[in-house]
């Protein structure tokens, strides 16, 4: 980054540190903990003070940086259009990692990653089927048999030729990115690039919004460009329904859709999943906090939120919000959200579609 760019970035966070904190009403970690310190403007003030050498408690500061959900609610509601606080929090995490400080929860996840090449641990690789369309099985989808079975059914019924790959040491690298391990992340991104190039794919379908964010926006930022179309599963389903490649039986139950934060904020896909749910005949029952106002589920700790107490508080808050709708079925479009919100029998949207498919075209 040039000096001028550095100055511009410094001005942005200094501006945020003096703003009225108008985005905090949507910040899940602030709301779930009731702690002003975790509100975006206060995080910005502490980052600025840390840069100016005004803080004594470096460890306390770095711990706070790992308490953000990195969900982007603040940037979505920012009165300045050119700013994302997450970048500054991430820079602090990188510094924390480089200086050897990371919270225990994060450390465990990074150690697992270093040993097995993924955050789950020892697992078999998946490599089956063929075609120019690839289905990348994310770490959160791996092991979710209901989701994988439903996905297979959708592929089969629609007659789509798809090559499935994932598992083993194939991962987008998100856990390393959120831990601040940029060297490790770069290596993983290059490995992923080689993996995709070897498969000669034109298009990759992914269930996990975070994988998509990593493999598009974040890879680009570190100079790794994937020459392939990457799409989220809801985009594929919408395409298949639109082309009448799937026949389904309509349903009358009520559905609450939980907007995954990255899907709704970074990928701007709040409408598509609702269109799919409505097309299947379900009646949508919106929670108070949905679409632009959705709250992060907490995701798995050790990744975005590096503190299990904050993560648990965020998850508990989101569960309470969703339960209030009293819907018959809860659906989402992120396998990590599905796992974290399992208490309300959360389904992935592909499962909902697969249940309704009646015959092969």
């Amino acid at each position, binding site marked *: 980054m040039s000096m001028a760019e550095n100055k511009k970035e410094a*001005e942005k966070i*200094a*501006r*945020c*540190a*003096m*703003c*009225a*904190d*108008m*985005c*905090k*009403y*949507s910040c899940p970690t*602030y*709301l779930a*903990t*009731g*702690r*002003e*310190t975790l*509100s975006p403007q*206060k995080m910005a*003030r*502490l980052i600025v*003070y840390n840069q*100016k*050498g*005004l*803080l*004594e*408690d470096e460890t*306390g*500061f770095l711990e*706070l940086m790992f308490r953000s959900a990195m969900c982007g609610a603040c940037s979505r*509601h920012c*009165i*300045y259009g050119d700013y994302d606080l997450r970048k500054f929090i991430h820079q602090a995490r990188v510094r924390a990692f480089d200086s050897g400080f990371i919270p225990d929860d994060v450390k465990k996840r990074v150690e697992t990653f270093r040993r097995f090449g993924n955050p789950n641990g020892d697992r078999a690789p998946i490599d089956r089927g063929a075609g120019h369309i690839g289905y990348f099985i994310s770490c959160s989808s791996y092991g979710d048999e209901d989701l994988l079975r439903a996905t297979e059914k959708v592929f089969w019924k629609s007659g789509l030729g798809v090559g499935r790959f994932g598992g083993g040491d194939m991962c987008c690298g998100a856990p390393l990115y959120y831990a601040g391990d940029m060297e490790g992340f770069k290596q993983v991104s290059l490995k992923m690039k080689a993996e995709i190039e070897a498969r000669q794919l034109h298009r990759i379908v992914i269930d996990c919004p975070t994988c998509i964010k990593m493999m598009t926006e974040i890879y680009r930022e570190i100079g790794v460009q994937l020459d392939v179309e990457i799409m989220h599963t809801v985009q594929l389903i919408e395409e298949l329904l639109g082309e009448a490649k799937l026949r389904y039986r309509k349903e009358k139950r009520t559905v609450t859709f939980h907007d995954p934060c990255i899907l709704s904020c970074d990928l701007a896909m709040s409408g598509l999943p609702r269109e799919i749910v409505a097309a299947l005949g379900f009646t949508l029952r*919106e*929670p*108070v*906090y949905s679409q632009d*106002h959705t709250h992060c589920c907490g995701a798995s700790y050790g990744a975005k939120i590096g503190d299990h*107490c904050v993560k648990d508080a965020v998850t508990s808050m989101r569960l309470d919000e969703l339960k209030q709708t009293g819907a018959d079925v809860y659906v989402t479009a992120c396998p990590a959200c599905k796992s974290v919100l399992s208490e309300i029998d959360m389904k992935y949207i592909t499962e909902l579609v697969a249940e309704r498919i009646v015959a092969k075209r």
Partner: protein
Amino acid sequence: MKVKTYMSQGGILPPGFIQKVRRIVGDEHFSQQEGDLISYSLDYWMYGVFLSQKGDLPSLPSAVIAPDSTSQIQEIIRCANEYEVPVTPFGGGSGVLGGAVPLKGSVILNLQRMSKFLSLDALSLVAEFEAGIMGANLELELNNRGYSAGNIPQSLFCSTLGGWISTRAAGQFSTKYGKIEDMVLGMEVVLPDGSLLNIKPVPRRSVGPSLKDLFLGGEGALGIVTGATISVHPLPELTVKQSFIFPSIEVAVDVVRQILRAEARPAVVRIFDEAESERYFPKIGRKVTTIFISEGESEYATLDARVIRRISKENGGRSSGKEPSDIWLQKRFDIGLAPVLMQYGGIVDTIEVSALFKDAAKLYRDMVAAMKAVEGALEVSGHYSHFYREGACLYITFAGIPKDPLRYYQDTWDAAMKATLQNHGSISHHHGVGFWRIQYLERELGATGIRVLRSIKNALDAQGTLNRGKLVNGGE
């Protein structure tokens, strides 16, 4: 601590107090960590925000305590009295007069964990909330159920219900829906001795002076509001937006007077002076622009809009359509320019006052002229909002790039307050007193008024436990 404080230092807390409070709220909700002390050191008092750029803060709290129930707050207050520890309540931290700054060794009583929507009584049109709920979330909860509180302040996204009550707040739609004192039917308040006052929600009562009014504007110095029942409104069926250009502020103010006299009740009425009109509506430029938003059932909103249109046209108003209302609705929460100006050494702030119609236009002229005359002034502009049949709130924004920031800030405030009092206005319409406005309070209330207010403070809080150094300097 490397940050500097310029008003007071955080105190050293008695170990017995720390031990007891930790037991009440749990270890994780009692903090003396540097990050927390800095985060609760300041609200949105603009001069304080300006100084905070360099790490200069008014005062650090001795600790931050975050209870999650009224009973915990009662226990904490009793404990604070026992150990003589002053307590400053903190809601959203959006106050602009320093009301939540923890002066004189105070601990912060953080109310943000008490933020639940409790119930909606759709038959009676009332809803109950815990006081720490953020305004925007209160509205989202109600909107999801088909209702609105009708209180939409510019701070909607960073202020709390408890803060609205404690500062006697007003929202942008107040001409129809009223101010916070018109909305609160009942409330729960922890008094400075730790006892609980429960004011049940009823439309009105006649049992002596209204006790709830003690806390509507009590600024956390007379009690801590922990929950409230407020009136709600069904979401409007129809919204009609209009705007008119008038030849002068005087004409515009008089037109609104006539409209309210005719019993029309637009939710939003705003008269922008030439400078603000140019900022908001570049296509209109330097003209006096007035926007009106009527809403409610279709029949009512249509009639309301018709009365407004007729009176505006009869008085030479030129319609500029609905676009200015739409632009204002889009921009109304955007205060992004202030931090940018402050980065370049600018001082920015707002002052809201009120006056009867007979004084309202002259007050604007005098106030703007006096504030513009202060050395270092860059811009002074204003608008009227929050109308009544009898008068209005005048809201002035000022900015300067002075050589001596504090001198400029003080002189501008002095000029504004002097012009207000000379024009028989009130020195505050809805921002409250905090610590910054205390210096002007006696000229507003008179010595007798101050004596009454101080007597109330002393009767409730002889020890001065709650929000020390705010509202009145009682009990010290």
